[in-house]
């Protein structure tokens, strides 16, 4: 055991280097879940290739008793199970860290480092000796390293066992073999090494009332709870699991047990142009409808999004952002669709965009998106990113208010239409720039003609300048109404006098809050505003105006959020400075520190 090993309890990062398609995902989840069940805050990030089998993949688990759940950038425990990436993985270990490798085969002498602890466990040999089936030998190696880590990191074996029992609840025959593999690893570690390591887990009570869930599943569940009945999509990474989530829960809760009849319709469309067309058609006809997609889908949908804006049709679009432009890096994360979403389509448009920061918010804002789309009669885009969407995050349990009823907005039903003399689709009756709509087929007086071509306030075709302008000017006013209805920003004040603040969105949140704490400990105090929606609420500009200097932190090259703030507020551009992280990996606090206080960042890296 190297004397350099830092003694750190509940504060380290485990990185598991695997090969895609070898079944490592469930072992890695088991490891993370075990730590979570011990009451210790934890987060898991999956770094995977655009591939099904054979290429390298990594899983990173950050254990943080203090609840810092951003990626840290360090690797304290590396489990090197992939010979192909061994050299790279070895180099990644932070000095003082530990590397665990499969010692079944002799290790090249050149692959040495004196500043870390290297532990060899013959995972393959033990599994080959113990299991006869070829596939089991591969799968059980994963469980075997979970066992070794459990012993080395002092993870409660009873917790591991109960999780294995839950994992295989429907295939109980598999429990003994998996437990044997885990024990093989644990026993080997106990016999050959000083267990536990100075880096280890100690039980805490900080995960009660929390769950571990990915944002896509939470968003899909939100669609079920919002009462969405039509979902249309074209499969695209990293958004696919939104529809998977919706489907899973619809099949559980919305299928008649006797007749098999379904209270939902999921349509896998031929492309994203069709997906959004289906959503607009369904929304127009009175259903709550949505489509999950990613950046390339937004590009394809743009014409229809503009149609939805101009014809004033609700739609909910989830854009789980990935690295662009073009195909980009489809399995990496970014926040580079903000401008595209805010102004999607040709012509003058401005869309409602929501920015959840973690899975619980994905659930909440998913429901909220449908209410806003119906209330404002316009497409609403929920901007997730791959990090939120596909990784498991620790977040508060999802909660449901039984008194919730959907806000379907200004819809004239048959009774209202019966009493109405004349229904005009685009007339601003209430002065809030939101007209009344009807659902087709409800009443003869409710019929009108939807069109993307010029129309006047009565809904009639027009090529008259005055009538056209009247409609688009009202749409602009509707956007101002939207700014008052969308979720307000989250503002966290430092408690100290300061004229400096950080402004950000979405999944940057944990990295920024960690950086703010580190800076505060050094006497540098910052206020913080996390924007949750566009068009910006009046609170956004008011907050900016309280400060002399604003750091805008975001995950893209071109400072898209800063551009939006420049376009949509009067705050001086020269007083905003960018913190940009666009490597495709989730943001870590160091990228914030490097801009604000480089000397502090250096200290953190050491």
């Amino acid at each position, binding site marked *: 055991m190297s004397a350099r090993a830092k003694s750190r309890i509940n504060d380290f990062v485990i990185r598991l280097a695997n090969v895609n398609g070898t079944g490592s995902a469930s072992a890695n989840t088991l490891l993370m879940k075990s730590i979570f069940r011990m009451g210790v805050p934890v987060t898991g990030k999956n770094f995977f290739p655009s591939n099904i089998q054979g290429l390298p993949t990594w899983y990173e688990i950050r254990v943080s008793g203090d609840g810092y759940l951003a990626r840290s950038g360090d690797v304290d425990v590396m489990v090197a199970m992939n010979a192909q990436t061994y050299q790279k993985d070895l180099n990644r270990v932070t000095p003082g860290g530990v590397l665990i490798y499969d010692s079944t085969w002799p290790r090249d002498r050149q692959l040495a480092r004196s500043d870390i602890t290297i532990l060899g466990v013959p995972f393959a040999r033990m599994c080959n000796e113990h299991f006869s089936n070829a596939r089991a030998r591969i799968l059980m190696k994963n469980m075997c390293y979970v066992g070794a880590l459990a012993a080395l990191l002092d993870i409660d074996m009873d917790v591991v066992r109960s999780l294995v029992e839950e994992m295989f609840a429907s295939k109980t025959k598999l429990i003994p073999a998996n437990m044997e593999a885990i024990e093989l690893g644990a026993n080997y570690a106990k016999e050959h090494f000083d267990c536990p390591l100075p880096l280890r887990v100690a039980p805490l009570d900080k995960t009660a009332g929390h769950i571990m869930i990915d944002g896509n599943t939470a968003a899909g569940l939100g669609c079920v709870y919002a009462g969405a009945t*039509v979902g249309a999509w074209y499969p695209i990474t990293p958004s696919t699991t939104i529809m998977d989530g919706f489907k899973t829960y619809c099949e559980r809760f919305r299928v008649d047990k006797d007749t098999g009849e*379904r209270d939902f319709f999921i349509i896998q469309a031929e492309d994203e142009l069709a997906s959004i*067309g289906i959503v607009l058609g369904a929304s*127009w*006809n009175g259903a709550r409808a949505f489509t999950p997609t990613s950046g390339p889908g937004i590009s394809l949908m743009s014409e229809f999004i503009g149609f939805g804006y101009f014809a004033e049709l609700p739609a909910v679009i989830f854009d789980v952002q990935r690295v662009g432009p073009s195909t980009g890096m489809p399995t990496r994360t970014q926040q580079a669709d903000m401008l595209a979403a805010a102004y999607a389509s040709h012509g003058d448009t401005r869309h409602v965009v929501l920015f959840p920061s973690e899975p619980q918010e994905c659930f909440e804002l998913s429901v909220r998106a449908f209410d806003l789309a119906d209330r404002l009669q316009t497409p609403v885009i929920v901007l997730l990113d791959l990090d939120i969407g596909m990784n498991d995050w620790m977040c508060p*349990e*999802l909660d449901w208010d039984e008194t919730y009823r*959907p806000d379907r907005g200004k819809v004239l039903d048959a009774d209202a239409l019966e009493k109405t003399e004349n229904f005009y689709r685009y007339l601003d009756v209430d002065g809030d720039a939101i007209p009344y709509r009807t*659902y087709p087929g409800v009443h003869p007086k409710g019929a009108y*003609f939807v069109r993307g071509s010029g129309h006047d306030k009565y809904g009639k075709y027009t090529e008259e300048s005055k009538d056209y302008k009247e409609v688009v000017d009202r749409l602009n006013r509707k956007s101002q109404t939207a700014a008052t209805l969308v979720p307000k920003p989250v503002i966290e004040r430092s408690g100290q006098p300061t004229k400096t603040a950080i402004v950000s969105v979405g999944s940057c949140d944990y990295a920024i809050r960690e950086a703010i704490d580190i800076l505060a400990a050094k006497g540098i105090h910052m206020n913080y505003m996390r924007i949750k929606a566009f068009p910006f609420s009046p609170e956004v500009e008011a907050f900016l105006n309280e400060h002399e200097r604003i750091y805008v932190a975001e995950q893209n090259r071109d400072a898209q959020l800063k551009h939006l703030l420049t376009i949509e507020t009067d705050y001086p551009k020269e007083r905003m400075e960018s913190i940009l992280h666009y490597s495709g990996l989730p943001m870590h606090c160091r990228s914030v520190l490097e801009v604000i206080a480089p000397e502090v960042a250096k200290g953190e890296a050491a």
Partner: protein
Amino acid sequence: MTYIAKPKIVHGGLSRNGLGLTVRDYEGGMSTLCAGCGHDSVTAAIVQAFFELDIPPHRVAKMSGIGCSSKTPAYFLSASHGFNSVHGRMPSVATGAAAANRELHLLGVSGDGDSLSIGLGQFCHAVRRNLDMCYIIENNGVYGLTKGQFSASADVGSKAKKGEINQQPPIDAVQLAMALGGTFVARSFSGDKAQLIPLIKAAIKHEGFALVDVLSPCVTFNDHEDSTKSYAYTRQFFHRAVHLDYVPPADEIKAAYDEGEAMPIQLHDGSRIVLRKVSEDYNVQNRGAAIDYIRAHQRKGEIVTGLLYIDEGEPDMHGLNRTNSTPLTELPYERLCPGADALTALQQRFR
């Protein structure tokens, strides 16, 4: 689509349908298409078909894309809902509309540019889904609004007004729909009202995707000599393969047909169509033979019209999905939301 309100004159002599409405109640605004446009005849046939079927206008949604054909929904059924979508994408909007409310009658009006070029993909997938709608293509082989370019349905050797000769093979909506599993495939001619009206009625009543490809000449850009989509050419070469009568559910089949000459087919709502074979060797329920027949006549330069294929046995989009028979839009929210207890329970696996 310029909108000109049409004066509504109802004189006492007008007959009324089962709803007490006159044909005037099914009309729309004044057409702004060129005088003599085939599309206006299709508009008239649509008006007559819906009137005769006693369908309340507000229970109909007129769906269209972009182009001369797609403007026509403004010229009929003014009391119906209309959705003039983006170019080539009407089938997806119709799919969503059908998913939401399976009881609304969907009438799609499209053109050869809208359906066979920019919207070919959407057209194909609507056929595959067996989306329950009547889908009319007003087919003139030419782009009118952009002044006379060939469309994908233009025949090889057909000459444009400015003299250019089309050399690319045409996409035939009828053969395409048959190949894709279409369950109701028909072709007609805007100048053959006697054939067109019962065809549209049967297409509306068919549960599934019903294509009616209507040759509808463009008087301005494609009605000259050497065009294969002109009135003169179509009149000369169209060939009625099958004659169809539409019989409403309550009516008896009154006409006397000789044994083997007529074939009644029952539609889902109890109405029937009676097919009278004009050609002895034609079988309207044999997909392969129908395609062969169409192709054989095509080689002779003839355009086969009529109901060319029908299959009433295939489930439509909702049948395949096993959707609740109540329209999804009518399901109460309480039925759709699993509630707080279910949410707590389902989170067990995330703890």
